[in-house]
């Protein structure tokens, strides 16, 4: 019995020997050690996949043209944007109609003119704006915690492109210009987001360039048909 035990032990050790040899590293195949810098330790960032992606975007915005001294425009805007990638989109068209409210200065000037027996001067006012083929660049996408209890996804973007302006009250009734600005988008659902836009528009008439500050806020509807 004792001899049998010795034979079993010898057989067991014999089966272990190749495994021990295999476990020993071959110095020729040894992988050189990597430093923290090689591994990117301390600067390793993980970019999470985007939860919301846009494709066909229809925007409905309300806003204003607050700078003109003779009137303040209250605007309604409808636009369509096609998003090609996470970073790049083309705002094919955005149409803005302005409901203009006269300022006190304009009323005073009209009153002075009429009191002097002259006709009321024509004050040019923006009637509508058509933004076409705006390039939209969306460098920032992320999420923010709301009071550490909920998460809201947001995006910032810049947009620039040509624009056409229709003005009333002036012989120069149609003008060409450029429009540039930036905005933020906060997603409420996959199909709807809150948008805030700020832009400066410069358009050219016969004498000199005119400028108008544009402020908008509203909803953007994502018509993306897939997840």
């Amino acid at each position, binding site marked *: 019995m004792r001899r049998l035990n010795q034979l079993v032990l010898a057989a067991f050790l014999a089966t272990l020997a190749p495994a021990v040899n295999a476990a020993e590293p071959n110095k020729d195949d040894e992988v050189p050690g990597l430093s923290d810098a090689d591994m990117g330790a301390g600067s390793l960032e993980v*970019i999470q996949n985007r939860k919301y992606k846009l494709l066909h975007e229809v925007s409905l915005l309300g806003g204003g043209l607050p700078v003109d001294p003779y009137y303040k425009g209250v605007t309604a805007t409808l636009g369509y944007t096609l998003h090609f990638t996470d*970073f790049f989109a083309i705002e094919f068209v955005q149409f803005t109609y302005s409901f203009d409210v006269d300022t006190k200065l304009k009323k005073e*000037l009209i009153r002075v003119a009429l009191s002097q027996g002259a006709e009321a001067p024509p004050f040019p006012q923006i009637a509508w704006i058509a933004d076409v083929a705006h390039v939209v660049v969306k460098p920032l996408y*992320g999420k923010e915690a*709301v009071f*550490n209890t909920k998460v809201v996804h947001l995006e910032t973007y810049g947009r620039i492109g040509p624009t056409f302006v229709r003005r009333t009250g002036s012989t120069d009734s149609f003008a060409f210009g450029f429009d540039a600005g930036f905005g933020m988008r906060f997603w409420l659902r996959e199909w709807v987001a809150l948008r805030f836009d700020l832009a400066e528009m410069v358009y050219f008439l016969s004498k000199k360039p005119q400028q108008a500050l544009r402020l908008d806020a509203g909803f953007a509807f994502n018509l993306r048909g897939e997840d």
Partner: protein
Amino acid sequence: MNRTTVSLLVLGALALPRAALAQLEFDNEAPRVFSIQERPYRLGHEFQLGLGVLPLDAFYVGVTATAGYSYHFSDFWAWEIAGGSYSLDFDTALKNDLFSQYRVVATRGGGTRITTFATTSLVVKPLFGKLAVFNDDVVYSETFFVAGLGPLHKGNNWMPTIDLGVGFRFWTSPVLSWRLDIRDLLVFESGIVPANSLFVLVSASFNYRDLNKTKAP
């Protein structure tokens, strides 16, 4: 113990695991679980320096130099104890246009102008998060809202103003962050109906805080 009692005990014992299982069932969908990451940046004493603009007045555009100090009580609340701005005002073309087109000279050079204002404001910071920059880098950001009041010097008079606004902060280090503030100054020049003045400010904020602290101040 009779047979009925034993039967009831056995039935009760069988019912207990079923009741426990029922608590794990969901009506329609599993509960949504959010994992809120620990904030890597926290503010304590904030010193702010910036350049701003007052773009709304028709007769001038104000370019401001602004400085401020805020104390952050927690991740969500802060007190902008003092924020002061001095405005250099530049004429627009309106005054000349009025004369050339309408033969009208604006009284007092086109109305009174804001030169200085200072406010103290409550700051609520509900949103904190991180943004991917072209999916390549990460920047931490915060969105906050302010409401405050203070004196404003316009023309030759001091008058009260209320400031309401929103701001965005982007960190570049625990000490330095960059802010964009968009505020509306409600200026009570005469009576209770205020005049509006938009104030847009870009500033650098320097944060002093015991960095060994892991919890919010």
